[in-house]
């Protein structure tokens, strides 16, 4: 495979590599991560996305890239109507999986005696694990409102504030969602899962701000050393999974009808502006709104846990929301290509929006700075708050990495790591662990992931996001 380095941390596979490529494929890496990318099928999957009809510029993979199904995880692909397509596989099954970061006014030192109680309270207040529904069973009409209004639905019920919405990508609601495009199957999967975490790699983590890298930005973000912050990582649960399943299935036929020759059936797609494309986009937005609402309800529950545990001790328990971002989504956005502003359908699958200063989509508080970019690391390691840059707008359709990126399969991780031993090791490092399943814990062992600090070094070095603060975990809650 011909791979050439075109800038520090940036590699390109030229269009000439394969006859069906419409644009070059680029990926961010250092030598070691480039070698890791060659070791699995992520580059082949990236090249496959360069064959999609209407793809523009270049397809991209972030340094946390790894093999997925269809698109690689860490992939960013932009297409332009009218030829441009939307591909449900380019969003993934967990539609609007994302991260929300809440930050407190209290320090780790102040809460250290209460961390055990806090971890237990969070585990009991935030339902998690396989088959765990929540106590919010939604009627059909209420579910429609969730899908139409997103996090606004939760705030209207008193489960959050207008500031939370202001500090959420898209204000916590994608306009144009159509619950009528969501199947009965998807509805029944979503009905009792509102306000639940699920299983797999989803988590709630209580962190401490270990290091500030950019003092001025950190101050503007409201971050300070030793501060307590909380990350929520989850998505649209079974409702989103079913929306994607339905669409991938339906588009198998549509892709044939449009005469597309695709290298992988998971890449099925339809023109964004076709009836099939519009129907998927409207259903995807409904699922994305469900995810925004889900993280909003979880944030409310977390705030309740903090109040119950810290309030009686006289410790300030309030948590404000720094930001909430999606990392599995497709959105219509305007970007400049070859000197011209063009409306594109930007797929981010395991990649985060990282808009730089001046983007009109950003809330007033961040518009002159760029948006907060939240990068959770693997369990028990560090996580990062970064800021989006003008360079990201030029290079990556305003995108950056979304996490550490898997290195070992879940199967391998479970073979190599015992859940009980891992829990012991984490606890010996002062990290409280509450997990529904020890086997699930083992699958998410830090050894199964790349080093998130290295991933962040690359995006920082390439200029597509800049370091603001490093977080380290104090308590992990998992399904």
């Amino acid at each position, binding site marked *: 495979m011909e791979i050439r380095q075109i800038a520090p941390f940036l590699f390109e596979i030229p269009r000439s590599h394969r006859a069906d490529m419409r644009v070059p494929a680029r990926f961010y890496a250092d030598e070691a991560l480039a070698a890791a990318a060659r070791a699995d099928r992520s580059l082949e999957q990236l090249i496959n996305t360069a064959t999609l009809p209407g793809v523009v510029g270049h397809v991209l993979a972030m340094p946390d890239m790894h093999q997925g199904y269809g698109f690689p995880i860490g992939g960013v692909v932009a297409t332009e109507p009218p030829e441009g397509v939307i591909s449900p596989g380019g969003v993934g*099954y967990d539609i609007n999986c994302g991260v929300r970061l809440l930050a407190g006014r209290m320090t780790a030192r102040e809460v250290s005696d209460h961390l055990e109680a806090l971890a237990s309270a969070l585990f009991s207040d935030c339902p998690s694990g396989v088959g765990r529904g929540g106590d919010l069973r939604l009627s059909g009409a209420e579910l429609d409102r969730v899908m139409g209004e997103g996090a606004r639905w939760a705030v209207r019920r008193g489960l959050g504030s207008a500031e939370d919405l202001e500090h959420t990508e898209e204000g916590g609601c994608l306009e144009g969602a159509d619950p009528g495009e969501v199947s009965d199957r998807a509805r029944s999967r979503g009905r009792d899962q509102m306000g639940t975490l699920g299983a797999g790699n989803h988590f709630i983590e209580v962190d401490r701000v270990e290091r500030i890298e950019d003092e001025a930005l950190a101050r503007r973000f409201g971050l300070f050393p030793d501060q307590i912050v909380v990350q929520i990582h989850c998505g649209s649960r079974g409702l989103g999974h079913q929306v994607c399943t339905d669409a991938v299935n339906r588009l198998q036929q549509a892709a044939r009808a449009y005469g597309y020759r695709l290298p992988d059936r998971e890449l099925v797609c339809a023109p964004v502006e076709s009836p099939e494309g519009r129907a998927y986009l409207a259903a995807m937005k409904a699922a994305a709104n469900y995810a925004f609402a889900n993280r909003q309800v979880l944030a409310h529950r977390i705030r309740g846990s903090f109040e119950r545990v810290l309030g009686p001790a006289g410790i300030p328990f309030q948590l404000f929301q720094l930001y909430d971002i999606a990392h599995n989504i497709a959105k219509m956005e305007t970007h400049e290509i070859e000197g011209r502003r063009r409306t594109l359908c930007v797929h981010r699958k395991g990649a985060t929006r990282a808009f730089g200063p001046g983007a009109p989509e950003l809330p007033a508080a961040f518009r002159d700075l760029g948006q907060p970019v939240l990068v959770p690391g693997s369990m028990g390691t560090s996580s990062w708050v970064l800021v989006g840059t003008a360079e990201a707008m030029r290079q990556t359709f305003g995108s950056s990495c979304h996490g550490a990126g898997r290195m070992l399969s879940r199967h391998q991780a479970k073979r190599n790591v015992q859940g009980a031993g891992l829990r012991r090791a984490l606890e010996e490092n002062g990290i409280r662990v509450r997990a529904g399943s020890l086997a699930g814990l083992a699958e998410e062992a830090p050894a199964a992931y790349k080093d998130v600090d290295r991933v962040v070094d690359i995006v920082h070095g390439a200029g597509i996001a800049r370091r603001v603060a490093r977080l380290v975990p104090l308590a992990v809650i998992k399904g």
Partner: protein
Amino acid sequence: MSPPGRSRPPAFEEVDHTADRALVVRGRSLEELFRNAACGMNRLLGFRPEPRGERQTRRIDLEAIDPESLLVSWLSELAYFAETESLGFERFEFERFSPTALSAVGFGRKAAEMEKAVKAVTYHNLAIRREGGQYSATIVFDV
């Protein structure tokens, strides 16, 4: 029947996939492949039935554009019952089976435990192959 002196390959086995879980599934007929795929997914789910659980039946009718789509729909249907009803199936009776349509009754029980959730069954590089009288497919699951 497997040839004498040579053991038959397993009905299903897990193979490594970086992001998710993948199974190689085999069968001497398409119908057997579908049964074995269901068993394999039960293993992935870590399905353990309630020992004295009441036996339950569900009817499954599916149509698809080709055998691969039918396989994805089949497993998606079973994953749906696992998630929404905590129901796993131990036996199936096929009333109708063709490469693009099936009607089946699944006999199952509520789970005492489901260790994992299957978010979705993917089409990633999915192709049902027939070689030497044996069908096989590699199925990638999003978990």
